[in-house]
C-alpha cells in the first residue's frame, strides 16, 4: 500500500503526541515515583506543588493519542488495546487513583496515608505498564485477521518486565531533573543525590533492552532495519552521551541542565526505536500504510488536527509560562 500524505500527517501527529506525552506526563509520573521513596511530609508537599499546575494538562496528551489512533489507525487501536487488556486496565486504575489523590489527600485527615499510597503506586503502575507495553511490542504482537491473536498474558515475559522497570526509572530520572529545576534547598539536594543512581539503573535496564532485539531471533526485522540504516546507530550513541551529560551536570550542580539532557536521552531512545521499527506500527505485523483509515476519514479529521492541536499547544506553553521559575511556596 502507498503512503498518502494524510497518512503521513497523522502518523507524524501521533508520533509527536507520544513523544510530548512521554516527556510531560513522564516527569510528573516520575515525581510520583520519587514521592513514594520519602516519608517526610514537607518534602512530599513540595513535590506535589512542583507538578500540581501541570499534570492534568500533561495527561490530556494521552487522550489525544487515543483519539487520534482510533480515528486514523483503527486497526492499531483495536489490536493494541486488546493485546494489552489487563495492563491497560491497570493503567486506567493507576491514572484514576493518582488523579484523585491530588484532590483528596488534603481533605482526607486520617485517611491521608491511603491517598499517598495511591498516588505513589498509581504512578509506578502507569509508568511500568507503558514501559512493558513498549517491550512487548518489541517482541512482536501476534495478529490474525486484523485482530490480536494471543492471550491475556501474552505481554508477560522477562523482557517487557525489564523495559517496564526501565521506564519507571527513566520517568523517575525526568522527575528528579524537574525537581532540581523547580526547587531549592533540601529538596533540590535530595533530588541531586538520586540522579546518579537513577542514571545507572536506566543505563542498565534500557541498555539491555536495546541489545536484546539485536541478539535474539524475534528481532530479525529490527536487526535488518539497523543494518540497512547504519546512520541509526548515531541515536543510541547520543542517548548514552546524554546520560553521561546528566551525571556530569548533576555533579556540577547546574540546575537547568539535567532535565533537558534527560529529554535528549528520551528523544534519542525514541528515534532508535523508530529506526528499528519503521514502517511497522504494530511490530511485526501491521505497517503504517496497512493500518491507515481511508483518506475520506483522515481528511475529515484533518481539520480537527490542524485547528485543535495548535490551540492545545499554545495553552500548554501558556501554563508553563505562568508557572515558570522555582516554586517557592515551600510548605503548604
Amino acid at each position: 500500500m502507498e503512503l498518502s500524505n494524510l497518512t503521513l500527517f497523522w502518523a507524524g501527529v501521533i508520533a509527536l503526541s507520544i513523544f510530548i506525552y512521554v516527556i510531560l506526563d513522564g516527569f510528573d509520573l516520575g515525581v510520583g515515583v520519587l514521592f513514594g521513596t520519602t516519608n517526610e511530609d514537607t518534602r512530599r508537599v513540595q513535590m506535589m506543588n512542583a507538578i500540581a499546575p501541570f499534570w492534568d494538562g500533561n495527561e490530556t496528551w494521552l487522550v489525544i493519542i487515543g483519539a487520534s489512533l482510533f480515528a486514523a489507525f483503527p486497526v492499531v487501536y483495536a489490536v493494541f488495546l486488546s493485546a494489552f487488556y489487563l495492563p491497560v486496565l491497570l493503567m486506567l486504575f493507576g491514572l484514576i487513583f493518582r488523579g484523585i489523590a491530588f484532590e483528596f489527600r488534603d481533605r482526607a485527615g486520617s485517611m491521608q496515608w491511603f491517598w499517598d499510597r495511591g498516588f505513589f503506586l498509581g504512578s509506578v503502575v502507569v509508568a511500568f505498564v507503558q514501559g512493558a507495553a513498549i517491550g512487548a511490542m518489541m517482541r512482536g504482537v501476534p495478529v490474525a485477521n486484523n485482530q490480536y491473536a494471543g492471550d491475556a498474558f501474552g505481554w508477560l515475559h522477562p523482557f517487557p518486565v525489564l523495559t517496564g522497570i526501565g521506564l519507571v526509572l527513566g520517568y523517575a530520572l525526568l522527575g528528579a531533573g524537574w525537581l532540581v529545576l523547580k526547587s531549592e534547598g533540601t529538596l533540590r539536594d535530595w533530588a541531586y543525590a538520586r540522579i546518579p543512581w537513577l542514571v545507572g539503573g536506566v543505563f542498565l535496564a534500557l541498555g539491555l533492552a536495546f541489545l536484546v532485539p539485536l541478539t535474539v531471533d524475534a528481532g530479525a526485522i529490527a536487526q535488518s532495519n539497523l543494518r540497512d540504516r547504519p546512520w541509526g546507530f548515531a541515536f543510541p550513541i547520543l542517548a548514552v552521551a546524554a546520560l553521561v551529560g546528566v551525571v556530569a551536570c548533576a555533579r556540577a550542580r547546574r540546575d537547568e541542565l539535567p532535565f533537558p539532557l534527560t529529554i535528549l536521552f528520551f528523544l534519542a531512545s525514541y528515534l532508535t526505536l523508530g529506526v528499528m521499527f519503521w514502517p511497522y506500527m504494530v511490530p511485526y505485523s501491521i505497517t503504517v500504510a496497512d493500518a491507515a483509515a481511508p483518506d475520506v476519514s483522515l481528511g475529515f479529521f484533518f481539520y480537527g488536527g490542524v485547528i485543535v492541536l495548535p490551540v492545545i499547544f499554545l495553552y500548554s506553553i501558556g501554563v508553563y509560562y505562568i508557572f515558570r521559575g522555582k516554586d517557592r511556596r515551600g510548605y503548604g
Partner: protein
Amino acid sequence: MDFDPVFLSRLQFGFVITFHIIFPSFTIGLGAWLATIEGARLATGNPVYRRVFDFWLKVFALSFGMGVVTGIVMAFQFGTNWSVLAERTGSIQGPLLGYEAFTAFMLEATFFGVMLLGRDRVSPRVYFFACCMVSLGTMFSSFWILANNSWMQVPIGHTIVDGKLIPSDWRAIVLGPIQMVRWPHMLLAAFLTSGMSIAATGAWYLLRGVHRDEGRVMLHWSLGLVAVLIPIQLFFGHLTGLYVLKHQPAKFAAIEARWKNQQPASEVLIAIPDPVSERNLFAIEIPRLGSFIASGNWTAPEVGLESFPPKDRPSVIIPFFAFRIMVGMGLIMLAVSWLGNLLRFRDRLETTRWFLWCTFLSFPTGFIAVLAGWYTAEVGRQPWVVYGLLRTADAVTPSLTTGTVLFSLVSYVLVYAVFIGFGTYYIFKLLRQGPTVEATAIRGATASRPMAFADDAASATGNQSLAGE
C-alpha cells in the same frame, strides 16, 4: 444468558457508561445554568446571583472532574472489549469520537481555567464569554457522542468494503435526521436533569429555612425552565419514537410489549411481559390507541415481535419497563413544574411545605429518566451493535476469555465504588453546606485541576477569602 465474554463485556460497558452518563447529563445543564446566572448578574449586578453562581460553580467543578475521569475509561472500552467493532467501524466512529475529545478538551483547557480562576484577571464580559464557551463545549461534546450513537442506531452515509464500513457522506453521518432528533432529546434531558436538581436544592434550603434568597432564585428559575422545556421534550420524545418505529420496528414492538401483529393495535399501558410464553401475563390496554400513537390512524396495522425471527429480537423486559420509567419521570417533572408555577402565581410557592417536599424528593427524576432512556435505546438496539449490520456477539474482542472480563468487571466495580463514593460524598457535603462563600477569586487553586476548586473554596470560607462584590 451465558456468562461468556460477550455478556460480561456488555455488562461492563453498561456499568461504566451508567456511571459516566450521570456526570455529563448533570454538567451540560449546569454549564448552561451558570452561563445564564452569570449573564443575569452582569445585567443586574444583583449579589444574590453572584452567590448562586459561586456555589454551583463548585458543584460543577467536582462533577466535571468525575465526568472526565470516567470518560477516559469509556474512551478505552471500544478497543479493549469491542475490538472487532473498532476495527470495522473505526473509520467512521474514530473521527466522531476524536472530534468529541478534541472539542471537549480544547474548550476545557482554555476556558474552564478562566472560569475557575480568572474572575480577577479578566473583565466581566470576557468572564461571561468564558462561561458561555464552557457551556458550548459541553454541548459540542454531547453532539459528537450522539452523532456517533445515532449512527450506530441507524447507520447511514457509508459503503462496505471488505467487511469494513467506510464513510461516503459525512454530512449524512454527522447531521442526519436521526441525529437532529436525538441530540435535542438528549440536551433537553440534560437541562431537565440539572433543572430538577437545582429546584430540589432550592426547595431543600427553603424547607430548612437557610439560604432563603439563593434558594428562592434556584426554585423559581428552574421550575420556570422545567415547565417550559418539558412539553418540548415530550415533543422530541415523540419524534424519537417515530424514528424507532420507522427504522427499528423490533425495538418499537419490544417497547410496546406487542408480541402479535395487530390491526387495530391496542396500547399497553402496563403489563408483565413473559418472554417464555411470548405474551403478557397481565396487561392494562387501551384498544386502538396503539395504532393511533404509531400511525396517527385508529385502524392501522402494527407489527408485533412475531414478525421478526427470534435471533433478531431484542429483550422485551428492559426496554418495556425502562421506557415507562422514563415517561413516568417526565410526567412527575411536568406535574411538579406546572403545579409549582401555579402556586407561584398565587404567591404560595415558598409557603406550601408539602409541595417543597415533593420538589425536594424529585431531585433524582432527571437522572433516572436519562438512564432509563439510555437503556431503552441501547438494550432495544440488540442484538445489533450497529443496527442491521454488525451483531453485538460478533463485535467483541476475539482474544477475550470469560475469566479476563470477569476480573476486569469486578475491578471496575470496586474502583468505582471507592472513588465515586468519595466524590458523591463531597458533592453532598457541598449541597448541604450551601452558598456560604462570598469570596470572589480563590487563591491557591490551580488551573486545569477542576476538582481542586471545591477543596480550595471550602478552605476559603476562613481567612483566605477575599472581599465580596
